[in-house]
């Protein structure tokens, strides 16, 4: 073997510092007090120390803190147990099993290494040491010892210790500034004080949690995913993971968050404007494809509401990233007159299995087996559309159309503004009761039932909004008789299916400024690696 091992300085129970490597050959044995096999090995190591100690430096890093003393006393060890309670040295040496034995020569090269207790290995080690050191063999009653006993897992591999060690290791993927919070300070309160929060408590993004979050994506921690307006802050995978931890996400949500962030940070989506507008817009995230079920998203009962971790925290993570990395904070660049609760979170999955139509992502050019996020800039909703009486397809489609009259203001029509319609399963059943009823037919029906003459849009004493009186006079009575639908075109009506089987309540999100002057919905395929 030509392998060498990292140096260390550890304190013994009596407080002396022992440094590796020292002079001459070494026998280094990692143990923990509550491991039965370590207790089998300890007297053997003692015998080896007694026989070869003049020419062999025996070091025993113990992982058990104060209990190291019990191990020493129990076996009457005449050498010191070194304190590796933090397990940093065990981590650096990449110990898997204890006892873990290393015979290291005077040049620092590993001569032999084994784990656990295989009597033949220990016996051979003793013989080889005697030969190498040119001393008499240690007197050990090998026959009284078990032939084989498996070791125990090294304590540093316990998840709560391992992640901490990984996070602090040289070459760790973590590069974000570390903030030490004094024991007297409450971590949750500290994060509120720093302005990291959306108003709700955050999960502290400790290095261990962030490392675990990073395991949710195959992308490396320092990959740049997007520059986030308004400050054009750089959202690396690591920064996304930090905010995802704070939002309460699980690691498997990371690919969805990454795709959603890429989508909102396009010029087409214009998250700067969505954040800044006084109208109070927010991104609405719709997730399609196999990932919905894989990460446990809600597409059924209460899909637009609370209670599902993936729905709730993916949307929240996106908002936190825009606030913390992009700097879009209420009262700063975010200038909503009223805001809206979707600014906390708004994310749901389409109920593709309950839909007779191609799902949203297929309509937008993706394959059915792709997992895709689509983001919409919405200012209102979900506004429920209640129709429990209609039994004919054209009736329920008509009600859905009438339910969209409220977009912006009922009197305003011909709007080049998006709406995201969420049709519930019972309304789907009614729509399909007489045969296929396509999405395009539903869009046409919405346009049909919302047609009104332009004269109804003219500003008057009831409402000053709409066509100014002077403009209306120039248009003349003939032009004002022209009927226009709610939306400037059917392409502004986006349709998905979600919800449970019971209840005749569809819903709609109302858009913001749509198109190049404002925001366009954007879809991104989720990279599952």
């Amino acid at each position, binding site marked *: 073997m030509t392998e060498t091992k990292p140096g260390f300085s550890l304190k013994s129970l009596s407080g002396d510092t022992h440094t590796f490597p020292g002079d001459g050959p070494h026998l280094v044995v990692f143990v923990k007090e509550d491991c039965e096999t370590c207790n089998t090995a300890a007297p053997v190591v003692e015998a080896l120390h007694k026989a070869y100690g003049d020419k062999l430096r025996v070091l025993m890093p113990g992982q058990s803190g104060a209990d190291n003393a019990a191990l020493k006393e129990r076996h009457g060890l005449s050498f010191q147990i070194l304190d590796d309670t933090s397990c940093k040295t065990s981590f650096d040496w990449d110990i898997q099993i204890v006892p873990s034995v290393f015979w290291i020569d005077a040049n620092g090269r590993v001569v032999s290494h084994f784990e656990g207790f295989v009597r033949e290995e220990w016996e051979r080690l003793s013989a080889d040491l005697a030969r190498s050191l040119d001393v008499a063999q240690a007197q050990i009653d090998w026959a009284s010892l078990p032939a084989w006993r498996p070791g125990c897992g090294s304590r540093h591999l316990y998840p709560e210790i391992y992640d901490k060690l990984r996070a602090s290791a040289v070459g760790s993927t*973590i590069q*974000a*500034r*570390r*903030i*030490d*919070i*004094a*024991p007297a300070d409450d*971590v949750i309160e500290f*994060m509120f004080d720093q302005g*990291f929060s959306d108003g709700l408590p955050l999960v*502290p*993004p*400790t*290095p261990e949690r*962030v490392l675990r979050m990073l395991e949710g994506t195959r992308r490396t921690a320092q990959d740049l995913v997007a520059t*986030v*307006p*308004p*400050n054009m*802050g*750089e*959202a690396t995978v*690591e*920064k996304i993971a*930090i*905010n995802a931890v*704070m939002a309460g996400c699980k690691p498997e949500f990371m690919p969805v968050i990454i795709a959603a962030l890429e989508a909102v940070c396009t*010029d087409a989506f*214009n998250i*700067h*404007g969505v954040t*800044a*507008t006084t109208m109070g817009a927010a991104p609405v995230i719709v997730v399609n494809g196999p990932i919905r079920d894989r990460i446990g998203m809600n597409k059924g009962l209460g899909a637009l509401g609370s209670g599902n971790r993936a729905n709730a925290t993916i949307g929240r993570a996106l908002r*936190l990233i825009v606030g*913390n*990395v*992009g*700097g879009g904070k209420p009262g700063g660049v975010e200038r909503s007159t009223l805001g809206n609760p979707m600014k906390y979170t708004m994310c749901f999955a389409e109920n593709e299995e309950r839909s007779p139509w191609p799902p949203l992502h297929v309509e937008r050019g993706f394959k059915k087996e792709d997992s895709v996020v689509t983001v919409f800039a919405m200012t209102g909703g979900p506004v429920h559309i209640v129709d429990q009486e209609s039994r004919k397809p054209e009736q329920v489609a008509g009600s859905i159309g009438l339910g969209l009259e409220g977009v912006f203001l009922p009197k305003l029509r011909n709007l080049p503004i998006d709406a995201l319609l969420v049709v519930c399963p019972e309304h789907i059943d009614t729509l399909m009761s007489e045969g296929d009823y396509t999405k395009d037919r539903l869009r046409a029906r919405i346009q049909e039932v919302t047609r009104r003459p332009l004269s109804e849009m003219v500003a008057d004493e009831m409402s000053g909004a709409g066509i100014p009186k002077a403009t209306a006079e120039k248009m003349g009575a003939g032009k004002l008789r022209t009927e226009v639908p709610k939306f400037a075109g059917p392409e502004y009506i986006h349709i998905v299916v979600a919800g449970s089987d019971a209840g005749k309540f569809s819903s709609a999100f109302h858009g913001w*400024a749509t198109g*190049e*002057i*404002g*925001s366009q919905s954007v879809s991104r395929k989720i990279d599952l690696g």
Partner: protein
Amino acid sequence: MTTILDPTDERKPVARRITPRTGALIGTVGLLDIRKPRGNVLLDELERQLATAVPGITVKRYSKPTFTKPCPDDLRREIAGEVDYVVEALAD
């Protein structure tokens, strides 16, 4: 002690000095319309009042492509190169 990781972009604010105020109004004033409804009404009135109050100055008018997005860099540079003052109007 708990250690957490910084969730922000760790940006350090850049300190910029404000241009010295001379008390005089000489040169070219840029009026930037962000394209909100009636922004032109406000700027027309401002231009009229400036012409009356400070006859010696030149006024140049600019407008953003849309109020919903930040001012394009080219327009920002154009304004910076051509005027001594700029007034950005929001309106509504």
